[in-house]
């Protein structure tokens, strides 16, 4: 690419990044966290945690509608923000949403192994990702989950040596992801399975340790204080094969259909980048297993499966797509760089075949 084109691409991506974060900030201040799940679940838990100062206190306003079994990393962050800003105010804690989005974009850029343009592309895509549907889910826990996962990914870039400290910090980030949403737990299980299937035994220790740290203590605490079922929305006895078909139909009609162009672009980019596929094999396997496991969970839902799938699919897939963005940016980089790699670097002597006599 020539210099002016590179500069144009960088400016366009930077502007896209700023539009994403700016719009998220505007929405946060325009309608501070009025979304359904924020009001009924996350904000309620956060406010109770802030006002009582105890984990047990956070369970006081619990009702079946606001899921006592949900982990509390996001409410804890909301509560800490309220403490730091001098009291509970939905508007002030709402500012966390654009801040987390900016952090996610930074982590995505750092996670990409490639050119500055590829990093900017990942950052811009992550910053624009919440707008795949309008209105956006302001105040939901998905933002924190995506940030934690992208932070872990940025920490473990394959071209840097992983010391004990960095591995431990990564395990903590993943444990926090499991402590943010049930999807975090499912992703770690998928990561564990992908590592084991790829016979990467040492790597498998990472999700295993994160699961032990992020899930087991919370489950024990819940059993002691709430006695609630581990999952209010699913039950082993509720399994039906037909539910899987319904969930798949809703996924295709509701998610893949309207986003067919983006899905096709993503698939085409990964198909065109064999080196990225090889390097990110475990990650892609993890995401594939996660989507399959997610689909399987709908077979066990105790709710109306069409309703359950329709109103959760987009949020359940959000962290996966945020991670996938990193892979796609690397794939773009590979596709763009490949033809250039065939030419010799400037200044290096190119062997010239002798002219036939």
């Amino acid at each position, binding site marked *: 690419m020539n210099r002016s084109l590179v500069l144009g691409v960088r400016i366009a991506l930077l502007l896209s990044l700023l539009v994403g974060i700016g719009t998220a900030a505007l929405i946060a201040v325009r309608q501070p966290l009025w979304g359904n799940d924020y009001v009924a679940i996350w904000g309620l838990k956060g406010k109770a945690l802030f006002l009582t100062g105890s984990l047990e206190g956070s369970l*006081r*306003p619990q009702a079946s509608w606001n899921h006592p079994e949900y982990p509390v990393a996001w409410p804890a962050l909301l509560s800490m923000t309220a403490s730091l800003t001098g009291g509970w105010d939905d508007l002030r804690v709402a500012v966390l949403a654009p801040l987390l989005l900016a952090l996610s974009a930074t982590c995505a850029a750092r996670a990409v192994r490639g050119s500055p343009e590829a990093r900017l592309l990942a950052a811009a895509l992550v910053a624009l990702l919440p707008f795949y549907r309008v*209105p956006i889910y302001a105040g939901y826990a998905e933002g924190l989950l995506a940030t934690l996962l992208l932070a872990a990914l940025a920490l473990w870039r394959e071209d840097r040596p992983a010391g004990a400290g960095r591995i431990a910090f990564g395990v903590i980030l993943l444990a926090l992801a499991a402590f943010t949403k049930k999807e975090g737990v499912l992703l770690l299980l998928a990561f564990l399975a992908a590592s084991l299937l790829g016979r990467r035994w040492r790597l498998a220790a990472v999700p295993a340790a994160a699961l032990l740290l992020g899930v087991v203590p919370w489950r024990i605490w819940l059993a002691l204080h709430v006695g609630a079922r581990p999952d209010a929305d699913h039950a082993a006895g509720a399994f039906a094969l037909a539910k899987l078909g319904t969930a798949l139909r809703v996924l295709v009609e509701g998610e893949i259909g309207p986003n067919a162009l983006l899905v096709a*672009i993503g698939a085409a980019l990964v198909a065109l980048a064999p080196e990225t596929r090889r390097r990110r094999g475990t990650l892609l396997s993890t995401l594939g297993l996660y989507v399959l496991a997610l689909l399987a969970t709908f077979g066990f839902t105790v709710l109306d499966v069409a309703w359950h799938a329709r109103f959760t699919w987009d949020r359940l897939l959000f962290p996966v797509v945020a991670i996938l963005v990193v892979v796609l*940016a690397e794939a773009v980089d590979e596709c763009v760089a490949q033809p250039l790699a065939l030419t010799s670097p400037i200044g290096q002597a190119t062997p010239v075949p002798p002219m036939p006599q």
Partner: protein
Amino acid sequence: MLAATAVASLLVRALHLDAPLRTSLSLARKNWSAGTLTRTLNSPQYKGRVDLAEAALRADRQIPGSEDVALVLPPGTDPATEFELWKRTAPLLVPRRVRVVNLPLPEGRGAALVPWSALPEAVRAAGERAP
């Protein structure tokens, strides 16, 4: 080209807000300068139901923080309405537990918030309903 299309597709969605930019900016400015109470009463959550917000705020002042609150609704209220009314009152009464109870209400009253201890013993013994 593929990557540019993906970015452009998301960019259009980000720029195409559900309200004109001018309206969004005006609302953001009003929210930023208003107090918590004004913002709460003007939020879409309480659109057309400011009476409910006022009742919840009154109950918040009168009922001790350690006591549960009963959201009394007429018998036969459908679950979706129960949830909507619970969702509007519970955040204003945190950290109290808000429980839905179905009891006949005086003519013209759609809902009432009372301390849990003020309910008849038989109702309390029956325990909470859904929430």
